């Protein structure tokens, strides 16, 4: 459990910002793993935390064992702890925290309860912007809609309606576009067949209907 053994900082190295924090390097790694929305590599973590990749890797392996119910190499190893409800997996070239497999049935029950088969108004609007502006970054969609769209884009990805197309060569931002499933749903052959946007469509008020049906 004590990965944060005091190391000797070489003279030219700046003071380590993680040492004074409760939880130290282990805590920092956990914090990142808990909230990042894609797998992260040893190298990415090492760069962000200014630590050697090997050290970070050791922490990751330690956490993995700990979550699985092994209490590490400490004195207490005699008494096995119960595994946590989550596990740390190293797949597809990166580390990510998942719910533990054993609990798949209860998690599924929870996930399916209250799931709507319809897109929310927010999702529909975001999808529309992506359809007409693709390839487009989340930041751009966000700017157009005036709200953060992270979780909505995630829903659309989950639903297979949009996909990560490429990376903006300049900004490095992921650019999204619509999928063939999206075209299928609309009965279109290609994105070019999307109706052109008329500047002032008559009867725009009727759009209010969406509000009714989507929430």
């Amino acid at each position, binding site marked *: 459990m004590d990965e944060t053994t005091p190391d000797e900082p070489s003279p030219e190295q700046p003071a380590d910002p993680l040492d004074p924090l409760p939880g130290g390097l282990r805590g920092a790694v956990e914090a990142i793993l808990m*909230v990042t*929305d894609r797998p992260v590599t040893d190298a990415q973590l090492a760069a962000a935390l200014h630590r050697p990749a090997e050290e970070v890797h050791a922490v990751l392996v330690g956490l993995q064992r700990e979550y699985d119910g092994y209490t590490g190499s400490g004195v207490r190893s005699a008494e096995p702890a119960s595994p946590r409800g989550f596990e740390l997996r190293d797949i597809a070239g990166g580390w990510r925290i998942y719910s533990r497999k054993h609990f*798949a049935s209860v*998690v599924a029950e929870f*996930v*399916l309860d209250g799931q709507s088969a*319809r897109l929310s108004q927010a999702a529909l609007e975001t999808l529309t912007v992506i359809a007409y502006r693709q390839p487009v970054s989340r930041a751009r969609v966000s700017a157009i809609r005036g709200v953060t769209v992270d979780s909505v884009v995630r829903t659309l990805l989950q639903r297979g309606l949009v996909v990560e197309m490429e990376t903006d060569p300049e900004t490095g931002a992921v650019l999204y576009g619509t999928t063939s499933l999206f075209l299928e749903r609309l009965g279109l052959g290609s994105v070019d067949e999307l109706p052109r946007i008329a500047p002032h469509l008559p009867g725009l008020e009727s*759009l209010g209907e969406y509000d009714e049906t989507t929430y």
Partner: protein
Amino acid sequence: MEAPTVFEVQLTNFSGPFDLLLNLISRRELDITEIALAQVTDEFIAHIRRIQAAEGEWRLDEASEFLVVAATLLDLKAARLLPAGSVEDEEDIALLEARDLLFARLLQYRAFKEMARQLSARLEEEDTRYARDVPLEPQFTRLLPDLVWKHSPADLAALAARILAPRQEQPVEVATGHLHAPPVSVREQALVVQDLLRTRGPLSFRELTEDAGSRMVLVVRFLALLELFRDGAVSFEQPAPLSDLLVSWSAGDGPWAVDLPHDVVGGTDLVHSEGAHHG
């Protein structure tokens, strides 16, 4: 940070007349309950003038809000400058009420401002925590019910038209929701004053405002008088200490151009009263 530049920078940041007033009061380190009204009034008027000059254009509804407070302040300042001792006068009582009202609203605003500061600090602190918000694991995504889709390409295009249309600025419109009294024009009242002075000669302020139907007209007529004085169209004379001020027309007999470009409280000649209740 030299004081003058700081001040210029702050100009644009006031989010309303109360904000500006509070700032003026705190800059003078005055207790809000014992404001040296005359000073603050002068500064207030000067500031809103400068804001307008600096900002170029002003939203009319915003300007009108400032006018309400400016008019009230001017009113109170006028009351302070008038001879004391005639408190039984109904008008004086109305002025005292107006003062209490203004202070009460300022105090209320100050309380909310303080809470806004606290909420802001909280928001900032909360921004240091990130919620776990990750894509659903594939094994669960597969379980999701099939999407019910009933939107046509035309629906999407209509939606796109609405969302992607360049955001239009709201038409400039003077909000009147906060008004109870009809608008009174400084220009109009200047004409009335001109008319009275030309036909009836030197008059006291009391006489000049005898026919003012409401407190609002009274205030605006006072403003008009100040305007006329500034333009050298009228002159004041006080025969004896504390006696009534006599106003006389001094712009000659020719047709005086009622030209009140950007007068006392702004580029509009509308002055509104918020207070029909004490009129």
